[in-house]
Structure formats: structure tokens, C-alpha cells
């Protein structure tokens, strides 16, 4: 009976898995491997102020899908690297490797009075040379909050939670993309790649 009740109160939050179109970015001509070191698990949020539901959020998987699209927009040729053997052991025949090594979601429950629901999203992405030398790493984060109105958690909890998480996630990814675009280390690396290609 208990598992049945638990199932009845667990809601999976609907999050859009990916962007409808590839992100806009002045693409770099480079062959890059994409790697992911984050463990994929779901995030359970226990809603305390209203119905007491457990809200399951597939945050890691959604983040991974979004970063897959972002990496494809950054470089002209992106190859997903297998998790094993680790690419650092046998340097791939590529111009570089980009790695998502952190995807973090934190949520603080709110109430109907003066404490808003808080959502914080952070990501860390690193670009390496094929030999494993770090070109640079970027940590981006975004926070969103929402003060619920009376009884709002009974009526539209899933709606506003998914808006908060989507907005924070998109904003953190957007910040990463702008930081990446402006980074002089990336420009220097892209120039080296272009020179090497011309020399071949």
C-alpha cells in the first residue's frame, strides 16, 4: 500500500528536453569530442507548503541533451566520446575535447506567505586539448525565485516550478555561451587549430 501511495504522490515535472532550433553561435571550425563526467540521476523535490507531493525532475538528462545541442552549435564537427576508456588515456585524433563536468540543481521550498521558492542552477564546462591540457573552464549559474500566491501550490505548482527551472537552466547555459564566445583563450586555441589545419 505504501509504495502505491508514494507513486500516487510523485509527479514527474515536464521539462522541454532540448531547444527547438540549434543555438545561434559563430561556429568555430574544429573537430571536437564531447564528453560528460556527470552521473545521471533524477532530482526529487519534496513540496512542503501545499499538497506535500514529491516532484521528480530529470534535470541531468535534460541538461545533457541541451549541452549536446550547444556543443554542436559551438564547433563545426562534434563527436560524442564514449565514457570508457577515458579519453585522457588515449588522446583522440581531434582538435580538442569539451566536457560538461558539473550540472547542479538546488531548490529551496517556499510557502504562501513571505518565503519564495528558490531554484539555483550551475554548470561547469571545460575545453581541453586532445592531450588533456586545459584551454579554459567556465562556471555559470543562474537563480530564479517565485513567491507563490495563496493556494497556488495546489493549482499550478508544476507549472511555475518548471518555468523557474527552465528559465534558470537556459540562463546559465546562455551565460556560458557568451563567456565562451568572448574568451581570449578560446580565440587563441581556435587560431592554433586553424593554423594547424592550414599547415596540413
Amino acid at each position, binding site marked *: 500500500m505504501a509504495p502505491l501511495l508514494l507513486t500516487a504522490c510523485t509527479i514527474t515535472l515536464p521539462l522541454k528536453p532540448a531547444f527547438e532550433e540549434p543555438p545561434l553561435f559563430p561556429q568555430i571550425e574544429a573537430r571536437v569530442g564531447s564528453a560528460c563526467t556527470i552521473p545521471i540521476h533524477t532530482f526529487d523535490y519534496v513540496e512542503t507548503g501545499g499538497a506535500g507531493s514529491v516532484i521528480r525532475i530529470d534535470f541531468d538528462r535534460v541538461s545533457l541533451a541541451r549541452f549536446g545541442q550547444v556543443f554542436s552549435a559551438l564547433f563545426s564537427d562534434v563527436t560524442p566520446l564514449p565514457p570508457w576508456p577515458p579519453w585522457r588515456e588515449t588522446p583522440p585524433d581531434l582538435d580538442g575535447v569539451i566536457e560538461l563536468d558539473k550540472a547542479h540543481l538546488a531548490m529551496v521550498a517556499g510557502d504562501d506567505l513571505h518565503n519564495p521558492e528558490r531554484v539555483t542552477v550551475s554548470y561547469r564546462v571545460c575545453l581541453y586539448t586532445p592531450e588533456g591540457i586545459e584551454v579554459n573552464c567556465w562556471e555559470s549559474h543562474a537563480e530564479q525565485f517565485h513567491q507563490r500566491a495563496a493556494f497556488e501550490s495546489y493549482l499550478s505548482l508544476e507549472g511555475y516550478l518548471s*518555468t523557474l527551472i527552465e*528559465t534558470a537552466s537556459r*540562463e546559465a547555459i546562455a551565460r556560458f555561451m557568451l563567456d565562451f564566445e568572448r574568451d581570449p583563450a578560446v580565440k587563441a586555441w581556435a587560431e592554433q587549430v586553424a593554423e594547424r589545419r592550414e599547415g596540413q
Partner: protein
Amino acid sequence: MRHRRLCLLACLLLGLLLPAAAAASPRIGLLWWPADPGNPTNPFIGSLEKCLARRLAQAYPDGSLVPGGRIRDMLFPLLEPATQPASEADFAALLSRPDVRQRLGKRLDYLVVFSGGTESEPRGGIICGAGYGGGGCLGLAWINKDTRIDVVTWALGETVSATHQGSRVEGTTWVPAFILPIPIPALTEAEACRDMSRQIVEFIDSHPGK
């Protein structure tokens, strides 16, 4: 000579009819800008977008409307609250980027960029009480409401042109209470939306699409 006259007449008729046909089925995007980074769930903006969409759909039954979320997706990462253009000049610069024009041009003829809100000022008072024999309220309260909507409509043709429009509606919601409080609402948001959509339609009709 007669053929030439006929051709001239046909050309004139086509010239008159084609722009009208283009304006009759415009593809319009609605975008909240500048979006408030601290309030992504702004209820006023949500209902204003729905209201504008409904009214524009009534004005152009054969047209198509693209919601703001879709436009943000089309132009990701350039329209997120943290990365959006800070000024109208920056917004114009964004729209003149070739990659942005190409993306928007596939789906849109016009981009309606809107912002606004309602300021409310409650006044008066109502006293309510209850006892063994029953209960009731007595008093008069009123809320002064001031709704403003600002819109910039961009015609995304060969050359991008824009117009600034605005609507401001003031009203008072009255709540007289004699035993029961009976609110008489001032529908300032609905009225401002109606006025705004009328102005947008006027602009679109006077700037027929590509």
C-alpha cells in the same frame, strides 16, 4: 495600344491587391521585452500575451502567431533575461544580424515587442463582523488602477522598420459593502489590450509584408 492599356490596368490591380493579400495573412511574433529577470512568471505579461494573441488572431484569421517562448528558442541564447539587448538600439542591432534575420525571416513578417504593467492603489475600507445572529460587512473600498502597455512593432522586410505605440487606461474598481461586499471591477487590462491590438493592426495594415 489596347493590350498595353489592359496590362497597365492588370498591373495596377495587382499592385493594389498584393499588399492587401500579404497583410491579410501576416506572420506575427509576440515577445515580452525587456523581460524581467527576477519575475519569469509575471502573470500580467502572461495574460497580456494571451489577450494580444487572441485579438490579433481575430483580426487576421488566416495569419499565424508565434509566442514569445518560441521566439526565445529560435534566437537562443540572445534573448534570455541575462543576455537580452539592453536598449532599443541594441535590439535593432540584434535584428540586423544576418543569422537573426534569417531565423526570424523564415517564420515572421512582424515582431511585436511589448512590456507593461498595472499599478494599483487601494483606498477606503470595509469592516466585517459576525455574531450568533449572523454577520455582515459595511463600508466602501476602491482600487485605483493604472494600466500601461508599450509596444514596438518591427516590420521584418528587406529593411527593418519599427513603430512605437502605447496605451494607458486608468480606472477604479469599486467594492461597496452592505452586508456582503460586491466588487465592481475596472477592466483596465482588457481595455488597454483592446486599444493596443487595434493600434498594432493599424500599423500592420499600413506596412504590408514582404
